């Protein structure tokens, strides 16, 4: 067998694969149910996966429900995604000890166990590709990110059940995946039984499959996959028309819609922190009582006033300017900066916004009134 081959795994074989990854030295993580949501957690076997669990999502709303089926991946996306594994919320970079007339620098080693993700979604794999452009492909490689990414094993499971917040089809980042994985799985359940079509994307995956019982995939399995993906596309209700969108946003920086969305926006930063591609961080030096200094890197959000603070004040002092910055970066200037979209259509910013602001609706409103300078819409404040 070689890279590019496709095999069929039964649920028991998936269990063997998880064990095998663990034996190969990986820390195996995948989707697990915690605190009423499907989040990333340690996987010791298929028993940890969200069997029969489904998610319902809408703007500002997320619920899970337990069904009596035995499907493991009949849900869309959870709140966190895989970004925190590669770009942690808090990192200590180095220490310095300030002595008599000298400063001694001490590196803080970053040697996490290689990570194996079993059950990333196609949009999440696409998001890692976007982050790679930021942290790996740019002029300044982030060595910690590079190491985590290069050592990681990513098994993606294609989507059968998009949520009402999903729009990956519009962003060409799902529900299928064609590149950017070690192993790509599709959960199938038809007359031929409950099984996974597994496409091998790397030499690493070949090693992981050693000792796992499988049969080569047939045309029947591939047409079952087509049916799953077709069903997922049909059920995807949310769309973003990306054709020409970057240009429309770039030429509508004074559009009245920005002020309207700012009336609803809490500037809390949730959208940026759940976004699998937002990469902003803040670097600060903390001191302790012994005079030691620790350089820390923490997640930051363009919705914080501090984020744009330069000498004398914040560059983006209003919610309006901060929302505009976020959305135009994500959907427009990201192209100029990284030659790709900053949005993979996972819908997290829609679902996890505490007041349900919908990125696709906001973008569409600006497209609809391209160049218009006055749009009336009832004010939120007038109701209170």
């Amino acid at each position, binding site marked *: 067998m070689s890279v590019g081959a496709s095999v069929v795994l039964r649920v028991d074989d998936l269990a063997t694969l998880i064990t095998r990854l663990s034996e190969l030295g990986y820390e195996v993580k995948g989707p697990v149910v*915690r605190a009423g949501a499907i989040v990333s957690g340690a996987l010791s076997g298929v028993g940890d996966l969200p069997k029969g669990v489904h998610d319902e999502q809408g703007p500002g709303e997320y619920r899970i429900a337990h069904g009596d089926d035995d499907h493991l991946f009949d849900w869309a996306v959870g709140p966190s995604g895989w970004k925190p594994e590669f770009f942690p919320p808090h990192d200590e970079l180095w220490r310095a000890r300030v002595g008599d007339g000298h400063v001694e620098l001490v590196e803080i080693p970053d040697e996490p166990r290689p990570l194996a993700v079993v059950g990333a979604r196609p949009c999440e794999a696409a998001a890692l590709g976007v982050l790679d452009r930021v942290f790996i492909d740019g002029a300044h490689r982030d060595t910690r990110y590079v190491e985590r990414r290069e050592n990681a094993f990513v098994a993606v499971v294609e989507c059968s059940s998009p949520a009402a917040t999903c729009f990956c089809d519009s962003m060409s980042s799902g529900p299928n995946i064609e590149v950017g994985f070690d192993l790509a799985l599709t959960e199938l359940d038809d007359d031929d039984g409950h099984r996974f079509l597994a496409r091998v994307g790397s030499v690493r995956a070949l090693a992981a499959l050693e000792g796992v019982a499988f049969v080569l995939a047939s045309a029947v399995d591939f047409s079952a996959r087509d049916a799953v993906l077709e069903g997922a596309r049909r059920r995807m209700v949310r769309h973003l028309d990306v054709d020409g969108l970057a240009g429309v946003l770039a030429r509508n920086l004074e559009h009245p819609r920005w002020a309207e969305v700012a009336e609803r926006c*809490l500037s809390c930063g949730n959208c940026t922190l759940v976004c699998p591609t937002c990469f902003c961080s803040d670097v600060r030096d903390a001191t302790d*009582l012994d005079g030691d200094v620790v350089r820390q890197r923490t997640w930051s*959000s363009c919705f914080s*006033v501090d984020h744009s603070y330069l000498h004398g004040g914040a560059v983006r002092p209003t919610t309006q300017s901060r929302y505009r910055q976020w959305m135009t970066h994500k959907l427009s200037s990201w192209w100029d900066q990284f030659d790709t979209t900053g949005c993979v259509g996972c819908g997290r910013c829609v*679902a996890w916004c*505490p007041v349900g602001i919908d990125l696709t609706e906001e973008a569409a409103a600006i497209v609809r009134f391209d160049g218009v300078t006055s749009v009336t819409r009832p004010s939120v404040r007038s109701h209170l």
Partner: protein
Amino acid sequence: MSADTPVARPTLAVWKFASCDGCQLSLLDLEPELLAITRAVQIAHFTEMTRAHVEGPYDVSLVEGSITTEADVARILEVREQSRYLITIGACAATGGVQALRNFVEPGTYPAMVYAHPEYLRALDTSTPVSAHVVVDYELRGCPIDRFQLLEVILALLSHRRPIVATHSVCQECKARGTVCLAVSGESACLGPVTRAGCNALCPSVGRGCFGCFGPSEGANVGSLMQWLRSHGHADVTLARLLQTFNAAAPAFREVATNLVATKVTLVAQPLMRKERS
């Protein structure tokens, strides 16, 4: 001063006004660091710790509590005069505390409910933040404050740098620690999106919605959040109560709470208190 005491230690004094002492006790809660702190600064006045008293002026004064009496008004001026840096600690000092609920009712309303002989009280009609009386160099929020933020401010002062104290929302701390959003995944009304971080999102991490004890975050859009909660089945009186706790008089909370109950004299706590006392 004893012979083995380093001479260059900055002096630190702790002052109490109308408050419960919880914030100043946070200094004592810094148990592993406490001895090192006393080596770095000289504790000149701190009645929760020692009866020893060193005369001012002081390099740093930590001020807890709100201003609620004529004597407070005079004493806070004195503290200001004696202090190079005046740092307030806690919700009472920053916004007037829970006792600022009195600001919104007829004078004497609450004392009449609570005390058998309210005529013995000598108090102002209002509870006001320290910043309403003197210039404040730095405010630490919270009910109580976070002891690590207090340590951070002391460390920043010692090394002449800016303290690392966030002004953004609690949400950012929930996300950093991986807490699933209670507001979106459950029924819990949570003030996190409009409340300033600093507690490391303590309440949401144990499944309890944020009740805003750190007060409004920078530029908090409280009206929009309340509108959303209203449209999701939360009663106006519940929401007003949510905003009228430890930072009831913070303008961003106060304005919206007033609009929610639609009358100047809100007193949402009154029926409850009467019931309990009858």
